[in-house]
């Protein structure tokens, strides 16, 4: 080790911001910018709502093309009826304050789709591969719908009451600022959990 090394510990308070990082050198009291995307239950419901409407419009206005694209063998009328159902569910998801019933409605619709596909799988021997692929896709969507509905249910239950305030639960004999560093001697009992001397920054030796 170099004997002439600086032995004082640098205080981050005196650190200059990283080069090119001046945007971070601001008071730490204010919140950062809101996140661009959050998958909250509301966001998931909205996403599924738009998905429902897009699928419903396709089924309603272009049943034949939709059937070919998705590999399902429903009759035109049945596919259009399912399209109306999808659009109604989508509108419900996008406009309702409580998305839960509409999410469970989507799950029920998924079950109906799977039942129809299963019947198709049994009766139609020509396009079994297409039908099986469609079933796998619907199962995936079903899993997402169930998860979204369950997440919404839990969040609704959790937020039914105002949050508790535990700001009086310090858990220490004195306020945190007065407890800071009170246990530093405990580090002596954990040498294997400390950075080896040779690997420490020179300034910490």
């Amino acid at each position, binding site marked *: 080790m170099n004997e002439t090394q600086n032995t004082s510990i640098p205080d981050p308070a005196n650190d200059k911001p990283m080069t090119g990082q001046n945007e971070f050198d601001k008071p730490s009291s204010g919140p950062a910018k809101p996140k661009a995307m959050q998958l909250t239950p509301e966001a998931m419901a909205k996403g599924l709502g738009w998905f429902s409407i897009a699928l419903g419009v396709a089924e309603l206005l272009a049943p034949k093309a939709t059937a070919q694209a998705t590999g399902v063998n429903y009759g035109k009328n049945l596919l259009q009826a399912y399209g109306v159902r999808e659009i109604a569910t989508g509108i419900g998801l996008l406009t309702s304050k409580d998305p839960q019933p509409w999410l469970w409605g989507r799950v029920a619709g998924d079950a109906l789709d799977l039942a129809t596909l299963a019947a198709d799988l049994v009766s139609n021997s020509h396009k079994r591969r297409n039908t099986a692929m469609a079933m796998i896709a619907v199962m995936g969507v079903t899993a997402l719908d169930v998860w979204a509905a369950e997440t919404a249910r839990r969040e609704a239950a*959790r937020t039914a009451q105002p949050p508790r*305030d535990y700001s009086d*639960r310090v858990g*220490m*004999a004195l306020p945190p600022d007065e*407890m*800071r560093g009170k246990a*530093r001697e405990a580090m002596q009992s954990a040498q294997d959990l400390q*950075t080896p001397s040779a690997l420490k920054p020179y300034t910490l030796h």
Partner: protein
Amino acid sequence: MKALCWHGKKDIRYDTVPDPKIEHPRDAIIKMTSCAICGSDLHLFDGFMPGMEKGDVMGHEFMGEVMEVGPENKKLKVGDKVVVPFTICCGECEQCRRGNFSVCETTNRNKDLADKVFGHTTAGLFGYTHLTGGYAGGQAEFVRVPFADVAPVKIPDGLSDEQVLFLGDIFPTGWQAAVACDIQSTDTVAVWGAGPVGQFAIRSAVMLGAKQVIAIDRLPERLSMAKAGGAITINFEEESVIERLQQLTKGKGPEKCIDAVGMESHATHAIDGLYDRAKQAVMLETDRPHVLREMIYVCRPAGILSIPGVYGGFIDKLPMGALMNKGLTVRTGQTHVNRWTDDLLQRIVDGQVDPSFVITHTASLEQGPEMYKTFRDKLDGCIKVVLKP
């Protein structure tokens, strides 16, 4: 006797099971007076940990009164009040002699299974899958404690169960997480998860001298408790964790990061969480490592990642390149509880710390199944549940 038993995913029952008996001369039988539901119990409840069997008795955070001791047990006597650490250790193997109690080489009755899954066995644990020995847990009226002449911590008179119960798990777990950070007085310590272990990690980091402690969670009640313990709080549903941490550290990142979340990080606030949840659903991934990714990304180069959060199996999309190139140190493991219990018990006796601050719900053992749901869904402001027989 009555006990809380696992019967499958989201299915915990208050059952009648046979009373435990002394099976080895070093054993003791404990009459449980208080036990707790731990966050890691939720991994069993949610069905994410393999190796559970129907009827397994749950629980690894418990204490009570000694009812019976084996003939070779010279440490305990009938009537002693003890807290039982969740790690079962022999005190004699090489790892125990080094103080690495959570990787004791002899107490896992299913060593062969653990050898296959993890490469080498770890210690036996109470109520935590057959991978760790299949020992009956402490959410029961009576508990058989193997190697009871080693780990159980005798409690002096004058201390309540609520003050000392958490010496068996979450207090030393939070403490070890902070100690593993090798905290310097100039450090910022960021703690992901303000659940019970996170709360103890926050207070431990303060007491070990961190200049700044930051807690990351989404639940207002948890964040209010974290703030009470001295943390600056970040609600990840309201602001960007990365941006806020950069702000608080002048763009340099926290020197020390603690993952007090583990394998079930919240899955709906980030794209990668959704990805992990989908892979988990079809068994292509066992754990959700969003917190690990975020810690690696935001940690100051040459910093330390301390991981007390439980992981059970496999993860992917871990930014190994960032981990390596930034020169980060990773410290993790189940808690070597008995390394810390003497010191922490003394701190409780001295009044320096009162761990009961974290208890929000107390209920009877019979109400356990319902309390699992309350705790899992964070209902009614629930942070920590204590159960009484």
